């Protein structure tokens, strides 16, 4: 008897709370409405639109009129050489980008923090950030120029014994991949160091001085004071980069590759693009390939985030 009354009370109070919440916050919910509409249109409806991957989509018939074909698009993908090559290139380039690109921002931050001439440090810092603010189109134009027949980097490579050539047209295995990783470092290392610099400057001061008083040299200070403080962030960034390595930053391939080098330069992103906007349009195939890429990407993201939470108790979500 008592329990039912308590339950009733509880229900009532829940209702009353809802009413109170509505009275107090209805304006908030009203403001949320346009935002919800925006995100539903540009984020949630496209998620549903992924179903195009299971259709033989035709522009004239539209989303609802096109026939369902089940996994036919995926069968075509996985039996086609073009897709498999793009998959291999994507995986190799993602790993290479991460392997080569992970350390430079950290090293750079350490160097900045060990430079005690403040104006000099600030100057080199800001100059090193600049490539980050240059657009992908411009960066790729620069790369085409510097690695081209009469480019500066080609000139250096020729001087150390390589054959003079347009390096972007080279189809030997790691050449294009290395160029791509290099672009990532050139653009990202400087600005990527900001976050590490922030952490280093938050420890430094007293602890470093104390270590110096105890007779620790520069290397010992870095090794025993700075690096331990930096490690959690490094781990977090490493797992996050593993999580996002399949998802972002491929538009530069689209600007740099050419039909002659598809064997080494075609990636899932560009394959998806060609299938949608190229000469032989196939939205179904394109969406299937995009879906495949985001499934790998999202899986990596979720797994790496889990690992991250375990290791550092931080997480993106």
């Amino acid at each position: 008897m008592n329990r039912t009354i308590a339950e009733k009370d509880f229900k009532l109070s829940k209702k009353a709370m809802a009413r109170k919440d509505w009275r107090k916050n209805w304006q908030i919910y009203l403001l949320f409405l346009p935002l919800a509409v925006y995100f539903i249109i540009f984020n949630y409806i496209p998620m549903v639109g992924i179903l195009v991957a299971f259709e033989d989509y035709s522009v004239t018939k539209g989303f609802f009129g096109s026939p369902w074909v089940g996994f036919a698009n995926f069968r075509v993908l996985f039996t086609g050489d073009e897709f498999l090559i793009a998959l291999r290139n994507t995986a190799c380039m993602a790993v290479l980008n991460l392997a080569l690109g992970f350390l430079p921002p950290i090293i750079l931050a350490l160097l900045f923090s060990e430079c005690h001439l403040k104006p000099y440090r600030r100057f080199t810092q800001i100059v090193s950030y600049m490539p980050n603010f240059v657009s992908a189109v411009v960066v790729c134009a620069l790369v085409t120029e510097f690695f081209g027949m009469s480019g500066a980097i080609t000139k250096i490579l020729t001087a150390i014994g390589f054959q003079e050539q347009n390096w972007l047209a080279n189809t030997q295995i790691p050449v294009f991949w290395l160029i791509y990783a290099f672009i990532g470092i050139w653009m990202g290392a400087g600005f990527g160091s900001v976050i590490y610099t922030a952490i280093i400057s938050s420890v430094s001061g007293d602890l470093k001085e104390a270590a110096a008083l105890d007779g620790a040299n520069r290397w010992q200070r870095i090794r025993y004071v700075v690096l331990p403080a930096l490690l959690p962030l490094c781990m977090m960034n490493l797992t996050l980069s593993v999580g996002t390595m399949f998802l972002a930053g491929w538009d530069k391939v689209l600007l740099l590759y050419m039909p002659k080098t598809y064997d080494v330069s075609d990636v899932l992103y560009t394959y998806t693009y060609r299938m949608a906007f190229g000469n032989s349009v196939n939205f179904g195939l394109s969406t299937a390939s995009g879906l495949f890429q985001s499934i790998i990407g999202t899986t990596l993201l979720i797994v790496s985030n889990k690992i991250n939470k375990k290791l550092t108790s931080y997480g993106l979500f």
Partner: protein
Amino acid sequence: MMSTGDIIGDAVIMLILLLVAFISFIPLWHVVMSSFSDGQELLSHKGVVWKPLGDFNLGGYKLIFRNSNVIKSYLNTLLYVVGGTGLGLVMNVVAGYILSRRTRFRPLMILFFIITTMFSGGTIPTYIVIRALGMTGTPLALIIPGCTNAMFILYMMNAYMAIDRSYEEAAAIDGAGHIQIMFQVLLPQAKGMAIVVAVQTAILKWNSWFEASIYVPTQRSLWPLQLWVRELTTNTTEFLKSSNPDYNQYLIQYAVIVIATVPLLAAMPLFISKLEKGIASGGVKG
């Protein structure tokens, strides 16, 4: 007292940093110097252009500014940057405020945004939606989509949450409504983050090219500057086919890179410290 080892160490570090700055800067320097060079000499030059080749020459810029398409694209880019950043700013400010209130559905609303950071429809489904809305071939396709995202909104939420509650309580007792509290009480204290996010939106919009290449591929009068950079930096030697080539044509590609890149780099000192602070606070909090 510094030991000799320390001094050598400092010198090596400064040298490496100089090298880093050099590598970061030299490609941009090369382009600027090339844009002032003599076209014919530049065409046969190999390697970095350290100073203008031949006589100082503004021919490339003259051709660029005579090209009404490029001027139009500059205005287009400004429109997309200002429109997208403005709209995004309003959305971030409002959404951050909504998510920072202690409402019944707050967790659900936060989840609503977080889901979009994990899953996305990808290029084609988004394209189909935007085409279905009739936005393709109009400037709206380049202004409205992508002017905010869940991460920006969550940053804004954190900025509001960091403010001492006593301010808004005092305002609420004085009878201030949500709109008043948001704009007059809280926003002035969270404006640092609002600016950081707006700057990031503006940079994204200024540098974006892919969206324009699929949403307004043939409407050249709507192209942003970056698409013209792509157009003018490919097929740069076409002009040589004419019987009496104007070598200034060759300089167009450098001139267009300069006018597309320098404004943002020149504005860097205005926002770089704020951006650094924003990154530092975002990262330290996780």
